[in-house]
């Protein structure tokens, strides 16, 4: 019986007249990879901001490992489409940035940053400044920075949204590899249905106005996954299902 890591209990958020997120309940199992798909403006980022503690929900509770963390920060890893690397720090120092923001960075922190960077293809860029890196490389650094926070729960908000299709596929395979090695729990927002199916154990589909969960689908596709996964009948079937939900009816 897998344990529940995160629980949203009737969490909602209204901005003025806009119901960004209707009261929503959701439970996330430890170690799982959950994709959240929905059209732009359906409240996905709002949900993340609530979980991260940046926004206080209008009602409801955010529970992590049984403890309420509603509207408090410092409990999750968080990454956006914008890599938010700081240009004045090298790759190594960007990876340790989260630590530097809470305490003094030790030699062990640096050693760990170098170790994960080497392990996942960034070894030769450790002393580079971010401006010298490609978009895909920058997102890898941003993810490494999220990883060394040692948070179990990682919130990734369309992290590959700005990358070209080829790089995006590479990044997806790369992410699955890191996820498998590190045993973290990932909540992954995307509006790309292929991406959501390729990556996840489970797909949460949201609808706009007001943003709410309309379906919660198990993803039966076997791992490890690769290009071949994209052609399997289960993949196509699941894709048809999700697209149908997103576009309100049959295809």
């Amino acid at each position, binding site marked *: 019986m897998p344990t529940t890591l995160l629980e949203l209990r009737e969490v909602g958020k209204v901005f003025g007249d806009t119901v960004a997120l209707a009261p929503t309940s959701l439970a996330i199992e430890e170690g799982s990879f959950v994709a959240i798909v929905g059209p732009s403006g359906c409240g996905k980022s709002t949900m993340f901001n609530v979980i991260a503690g940046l926004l206080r929900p209008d009602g409801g509770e955010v529970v992590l490992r049984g403890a309420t963390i509603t509207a408090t920060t410092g409990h999750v890893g968080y990454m956006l489409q914008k890599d938010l690397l700081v240009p004045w720090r*090298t790759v190594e120092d960007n990876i340790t940035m989260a630590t530097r923001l809470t305490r003094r960075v030790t030699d062990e922190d640096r050693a760990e940053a170098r170790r994960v960077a080497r392990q996942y293809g960034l070894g030769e860029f450790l002393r580079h400044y971010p401006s010298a890196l490609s978009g895909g490389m920058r997102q890898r650094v941003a993810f490494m920075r999220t990883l060394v926070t040692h948070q179990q729960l990682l919130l990734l908000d369309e992290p590959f949204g700005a990358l070209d299709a080829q790089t995006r596929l590479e990044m997806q395979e790369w992410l699955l590899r890191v996820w498998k090695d590190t045993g973290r729990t990932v909540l992954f927002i995307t509006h790309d249905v292929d991406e959501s199916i390729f990556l996840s154990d489970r797909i949460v589909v949201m609808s706009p106005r007001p943003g709410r969960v309309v379906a919660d689908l198990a993803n039966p596709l076997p791992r490890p996954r690769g290009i071949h996964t994209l052609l399997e009948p289960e993949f196509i079937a699941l894709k048809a299902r999700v697209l149908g939900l997103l576009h309100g009816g049959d295809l």
Partner: protein
Amino acid sequence: MRRRVLLNVGVPILSLLLVLGVWQLIVVGGHVASYIAPRPRAAITAVTSQWSTLWPLILGTIRETIYGYLLGAVLGFALGVVMAKIPVVQRLVYPVILVSQAVPVIALAPVLVIILGFGIVPKIVIVTWIVFFPVTVNVLDGLGHVDPDLKNLARVYGASRWRTFVQIEVPASTTPLFSGLKIGAIYAVTGAIIGELAASEGNSLALYQEHANSNLNTAAVYGTTIVMTLIGIAWFLLVVGLEVWSTPWQRRSVARRRWRRGADDPTG
């Protein structure tokens, strides 16, 4: 690399030499009387021949410039930070500092002499008065434009306000900060000279020039002006140097090896 040095150092020197050349051309070709404008060489000789008299005065001007500049930079930065962080203070103080800059500094000098006497203090105050403003305005602007997503990310990590300020907001504002510091550097010497003109009873570079002027020693007047200008340019270049040194990421793609290495790093 060599090409860049050539461009950055060679071209400015060339353009200054060009100015001297044009000066020479106008004076010689236009048969300008030497009491109106001396030849460049005469102006320079007027300085070098009086070097032992001038050097202490130059040092005095440099001292006023440095003290006033450092005070103005620190004050300007602090004021910018406080105004950026506390909106009420910003609303209260902004009009005051605007008015402070609208006051003609020359008119201010006698008042400062009345209050502070003839020593170095009124000169420092004038330099500070001129320097703090561009620093404050630029720091305020820089801190106001730090990416809110970046600040949110720091919050998600559980960063304190202080660490967010030191690790994110200040480094993110270096470009505007140095804009303010560079503008201030160019004006600092002007402030010191104004201070010397209005508030010196004994020796100073400004009074030396005034004395030369009343003796119709035009070459010395021009020469002193060149000296003053050079002090300003040297100070400006120093600040530019500081900027270049402290912002390596703006020119390099790979960081220099740093003195602190992890003990376990096999690549050294």
